[in-house]
């Protein structure tokens, strides 16, 4: 268990270094980061002064060294637009995004898991078809478009929910629904197929044949095994939502990291984009690590095997 954990930790640290490398070189891929970040009308002197100020004239290894030593203490330089530390700006946006993603995940799980269970235990039933239809829809509807349609219906026409901002509890409902829908579909599919698969296993037949109550079998044997893939998918999906809420935060003017990315891309404020990209990657890697640990705790096969 300890060795398993340590090797996962080592892998994550290596991956994090890879992320830093990527984030550093990405803004340099066109060859001239200064002209990328400064407005196109700037005079050549201004560009040169900017280049000097940002240290783009130094050897690339010096630049990378400086970037790395800053990154380990969370310093990604100043935002070009706000002139204040980039990481601090990102941190201010974290609570809003976490609230949105958390609510979305909760909605997805609360609806998705029961639908998946019902579908798995009664394949072909009306509820099963409903769940599968929902899953397909969640996979196929472009969320940026669904957001617009929902605003049109529930905010403009009916006035049930506010169309933008984060001022009251109702504000989170629409963006969280849109963000959570694809995940809901995935949870339905996964739960359903896992239940179907496990119901056919030998140990379930044995449990039935030795006369256990069906309810005991469902709770103790089936649900426990359904939890394993669900934990991993929920972990992955939460990470995906943190980085994938760009459209939804933009459309609903939700003051989170996704909106910050959209804005800073428009301002060509790349230190800010770098800070968001690094921070979200860090969180995703941590989540993956946590998922692996949770996995090992739930599933003894991983704990003792390999």
């Amino acid at each position, binding site marked *: 268990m300890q060795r398993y954990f340590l090797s996962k930790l080592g892998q994550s640290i290596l991956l994090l270094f890879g992320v830093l490398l990527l984030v550093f070189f990405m803004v340099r891929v066109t060859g001239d980061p200064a002209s*990328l970040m400064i407005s196109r009308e700037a005079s050549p002197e201004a560009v040169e002064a900017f280049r000097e100020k940002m240290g783009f004239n130094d050897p690339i290894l010096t630049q990378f060294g400086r970037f790395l030593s800053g990154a380990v203490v969370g310093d990604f330089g100043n935002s070009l637009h706000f002139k204040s530390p980039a990481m601090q700006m990102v941190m201010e946006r974290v609570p809003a995004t976490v609230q949105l993603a958390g609510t979305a995940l909760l909605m997805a799980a609360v609806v998705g898991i029961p639908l998946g269970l019902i579908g798995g235990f009664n*394949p072909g039933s009306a509820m099963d078809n409903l769940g599968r239809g929902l899953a*397909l829809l969640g996979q196929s509807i472009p969320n940026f478009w669904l957001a617009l349609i929902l605003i049109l219906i529930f905010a403009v026409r009916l006035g049930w929910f506010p169309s933008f901002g984060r001022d009251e509890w109702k504000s989170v409902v629409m963006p969280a629904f849109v963000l959570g829908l694809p995940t809901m579909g995935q949870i339905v599919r996964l739960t359903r197929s896992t239940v179907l*698969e496990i119901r056919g296993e030998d140990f379930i037949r044995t449990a039935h044949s030795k006369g256990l109550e069906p309810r005991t079998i469902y709770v103790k044997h089936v649900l426990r095994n359904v939890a394993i893939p669900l934990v991993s998918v929920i972990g992955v999906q939460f990470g*995906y939502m943190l980085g994938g809420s760009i459209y939804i935060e933009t459309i609903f003017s939700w003051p989170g990291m996704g909106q910050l990315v*959209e804005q800073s891309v428009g301002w060509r404020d790349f230190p800010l984009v770098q800070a968001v990209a690094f921070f979200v990657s860090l969180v995703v890697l941590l989540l993956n690590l946590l998922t692996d640990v949770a996995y090992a705790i739930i599933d003894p096969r991983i704990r003792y095997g390999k």
Partner: protein
Amino acid sequence: MASEERTQAADSLLDVERTFKDRLAYAGRFLWRDRSGIIGLILFLVVVVAAVFAPQFSPYDPLEQNLRDNKMPPAWSAEGGWDHPLGTDNLGRDTLSRILYGTRVSLTVGFFGVLIAGTLGVVIGAIAGYAGGRVDAVIMGFINLVLSLPYLLFVVFIASILGRSLINVILIFGITDSPIFARVTRGEVLRIRESGYVESAISVGARWGRILFDHIMPNLMGPLITLATFEMSRMIFYEAGLGFLGLSVPPTVPSWGNMLANGRKYLTSSPWIATFPGLAIMFTSLGMNLLGDWLRDVLDPRLRRSRK
């Protein structure tokens, strides 16, 4: 009785060794029994036909502006007319024509994106799977890095650096999506390499080229075609998303994402401008997902049993 059992055993053996062509023939028969597969195929074909014959079907030039007829609602609403069946946008451009031409952008990105991603991924994955050992460890480490990144965030990041052009969008998706193909290919190569028929091919002295092309490649095609369908649908989706953020093809090109970005500004006054491109994305995506589900069931015999 005994001979019947033997034929059955032979049949199930044949099932494993069935060539790709036989599977396609089987898929054809299977298709008639699977309604959702048919629907998916039809939706996909409609999109392809719309893309190929966009100039013939379009009532107008998609770029032609006609300010007198701007923001016309679709034909079935009171003020609409059959001159513009799906209405016009803020510059009086015909929505139907722009949607038809938009299929070209979407399919081009999807097709070439998958082609690049698939080619890169299959080569990388086959090397990793076949070489094993340290090579495999390094390649898979890199692939896991890319796959663990917040995908959309990095795609937006790269797109904003490279700038708006069709080639850039195709390259971005082609490169960022290749790890998925690599991972699937590696997994399949590992599995096939350990299988009984490859072992027997090696034991009768088959050369590696023959093993690769006669045994490994045909068995790879099924999972890869399925994956390609899903990934193409995903790319069409993401391309529209980038367009919506103003990061895909240049704003003058009629693409679904650009139309959505434009329509968003007139959402409350003229909602149809944003509605129709969204529907187009949805039906394309729906079609390809249904097609992909069906292909997976048909091309992968191991999954077939779990259908019912």
